[in-house]
């Protein structure tokens, strides 16, 4: 990826380089956006909704989302549920094990702000963005599968605006 970035920075300076760059950018972004493999990983009640979204009626596979168990092979981490102080380092490790480019969706109010555990909880982290950077927030307690799908569509839009030279 670093090598590719160097190459593209070089291409950008050539005459007509921008044209090549935007074409390849859109091709690569199309591939990245349409093949988001997510990590088989859930924390709490939102995970049930995530499973429902993956199963028959809502079917994340339609969007090209497939689950993989190993973080090395995934692109997307859906943090579904309350992040406890004990779990936070593990989430950090899993995120660090994922290969670039990687994206994070914070699903449900607990993963966004701590939700119901915002006051008077010694155990809950107030939002997963204290541990890892988050791309898309999906509110709800828990959000319905439709909301998760909308969040994924938003993430795809976001990926399609990326460029190889700057990320």
């Amino acid at each position, binding site marked *: 990826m670093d090598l590719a970035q160097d190459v593209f920075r070089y291409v950008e300076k050539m005459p007509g380089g921008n044209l090549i760059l935007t074409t390849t950018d859109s091709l690569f972004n199309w591939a990245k956006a349409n093949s988001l493999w997510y990590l088989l990983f859930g924390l709490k009640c939102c995970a049930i909704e995530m499973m429902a979204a993956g*199963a028959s009626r809502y079917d994340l596979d339609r969007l090209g989302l497939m689950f993989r168990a190993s973080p090395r092979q995934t692109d997307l981490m859906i943090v579904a549920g309350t992040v406890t102080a004990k779990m936070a380092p593990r989430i950090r490790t899993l995120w660090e094990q994922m290969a*670039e480019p990687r994206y994070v969706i914070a699903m449900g109010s607990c993963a966004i702000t701590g939700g119901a555990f915002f006051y008077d909880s010694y155990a809950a982290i107030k939002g997963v963005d204290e541990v890892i950077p988050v791309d898309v927030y999906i509110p709800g307690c828990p959000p319905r599968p439709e909301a998760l799908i909308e969040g994924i569509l938003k993430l795809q839009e976001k990926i399609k605006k990326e460029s190889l030279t700057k990320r």
Partner: protein
Amino acid sequence: MIIGLIILLLKIAAVLVFISLTVLFLVYAERKVSAHFQVRYGPMRVGWHGGLQMIADTIKLLLKEDITPKDVDKLVFFIAPILCFVSAYLAYLTLPFSPQIVVKNLNIGLLYILGVTSLTVLSLMMAGWASNNKYALLGGFRSVAQIISYEIPLVLSVLPVVMMAGSLNLITIVEAQKSLPFILVQPLGFLLYLTAAAAEANRAPFDIPEAEQELVAGYNVEYSGIKFSMFFLAEYVNMFTICALAAILFLGGWQGPILPPVIWFLIKVYLLVFVLMWVRWTFPRLRIDQLMSFCWKILLPLALANFLISGLWLVLK
């Protein structure tokens, strides 16, 4: 000499390209078949009915960061996926698609394929060991134990076919089935072959090496990006190989009325591939001890009995 060499290389390249495209199609078909078995649609957004899904996946896998963890055995970690990929493709050097379309017709073709596929075991073992990860090591152990155990009933179920055809040459074996395919004479042998071969290719219900629930992802836990895609593709190449071999040995290969030979061959192979997918998405996974006892206590005696009876029948006929 030189022209012959060039023609040979061209043939190899053509077969490689064909197999790679087939494999991409197989991965797509697997996702669609699995989806429809589970009352889902499968990939729908990318191209017509998700037809371009595999292209997107391939580009993404090539773009992913290629991680080499800190404490791995770097040389072995690098070689294992390449060996897996190459050994999966080596079988196609002698696998005939029709009497004309074959790279090199070996006199001992069947033995050659059995020998080359045993190289896959090594690559899985190397991957499991080099990753320096207990899940990878356990996955490697399990897959190797499974593959070398199931190789015995596999070979024993193929031997009656060799006895009846009187040759190890795959083209001769197909031509021996001119009047009737061997599946009618050897129904038990066919079933045994298909079961053992599904286990050889690590297909469900024998996919214990990759059991997500207990072993994360088996021997390829630590692999990412292009190295992982090599393992992934090799798995589907192996599946196509075992189905092609089953079509050649039991279903009469390319023989059939009206249509050209290659089409008949591909129809038979894809039918078998569909059967394997059907089995995968219908049956639950076996436990490792059930798997082993199934091999040694059921498949092996049945294969031996089948072997003995066909031998007696051939002698007394």
